[in-house]
């Protein structure tokens, strides 16, 4: 713990970040077994696990301040309490072009968020962000090679167009200009955190099902 308790806003941002990583990891893991080809199935499943690992580390950090533990924060809250961006909630399994579009936009946004958190005055958070950045470098490489591969594809271009307002909502307003610059697009009105997509309640049911089946069990 730092000498001074982290600001409430910083803890809320960590929790929102954790929710993003958990929900995106969950959505991405829905490709396991059905990705376009075997090699990609393994690689993308591994990335999904990576996101969930980051979520756990962020929940642990938040739990240091809020009490409880990572599992409780991840799975014991009501659906309405999650602070993830609607962007990560969209069910895209089955549409690989859209999945790659989200992956690429998310990783690009994440690189901006992680770089900012590495400068945080909450030392544990700055340290965690630096650690995450080393793994995210692999995620970014993967996302960029796919974005390049699908660069001339119409379905991919349409997916990026459709997802763009959602992607902006991952970042605080002050950081969105940088994302627009990196993505080579104009900033538009973002789909903000707070409300959830229609499918989120069903996703929450699924995510918390095992945990709810035997409350308090250790796994």
């Amino acid at each position, binding site marked *: 713990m730092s000498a001074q308790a982290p600001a409430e806003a910083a803890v809320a941002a960590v929790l929102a970040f954790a929710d993003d990583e958990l929900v995106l990891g969950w959505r991405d893991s829905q490709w396991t077994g059905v990705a376009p080809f075997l*090699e990609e199935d393994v*690689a993308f499943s591994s990335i999904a696990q990576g996101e969930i690992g980051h979520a756990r580390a962020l929940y642990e950090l938040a739990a240091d301040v809020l009490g409880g533990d990572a599992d409780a924060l991840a799975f014991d809250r009501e659906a309405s309490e999650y602070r993830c961006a609607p962007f990560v909630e969209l069910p895209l399994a089955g549409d690989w072009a859209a999945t790659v579009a989200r992956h690429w936009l998310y990783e690009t946004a994440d690189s901006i968020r992680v770089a900012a958190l590495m400068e945080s005055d909450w030392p544990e958070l700055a340290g965690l962000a630096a650690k995450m950045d080393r793994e995210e470098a692999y995620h970014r*490489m993967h996302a960029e090679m796919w974005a390049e*591969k699908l660069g001339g594809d119409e379905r991919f271009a349409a997916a990026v167009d459709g997802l763009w307002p959602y992607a902006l909502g991952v970042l605080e307003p002050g950081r969105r200009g940088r994302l627009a610059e990196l993505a080579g697009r104009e900033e538009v009105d973002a789909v903000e955190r707070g409300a959830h997509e229609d499918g989120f309640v069903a996703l929450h049911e699924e995510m918390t099902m095992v945990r709810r089946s035997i409350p308090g069990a250790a796994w």
Partner: protein
Amino acid sequence: MIWEVFRQEREGQPFQHGGSLEAPNRDFAEAYAAEFYGRRAESVALWVVPREAILQIDEPYVADVFDRDYRRVDGYSLKVKLKEARERAGTG
């Protein structure tokens, strides 16, 4: 496109065939090879080679039509001769 992956387990050791993977280009081959053979730090280096770049030679025997048994070392027992040599040298 099929790529063959050779992995080196420790520095200084020879690269050994690890397996093959399918990838559309070098970037994908690199990412998948790292994922399959590097994630658990089981390799210190990899060679990733397009399968068509490999020259395969089947039945690579050099014609051996005359009797040149003396070129072969099998059946030649070094053990006894080495023992005798050591005794002569006083190091046996």
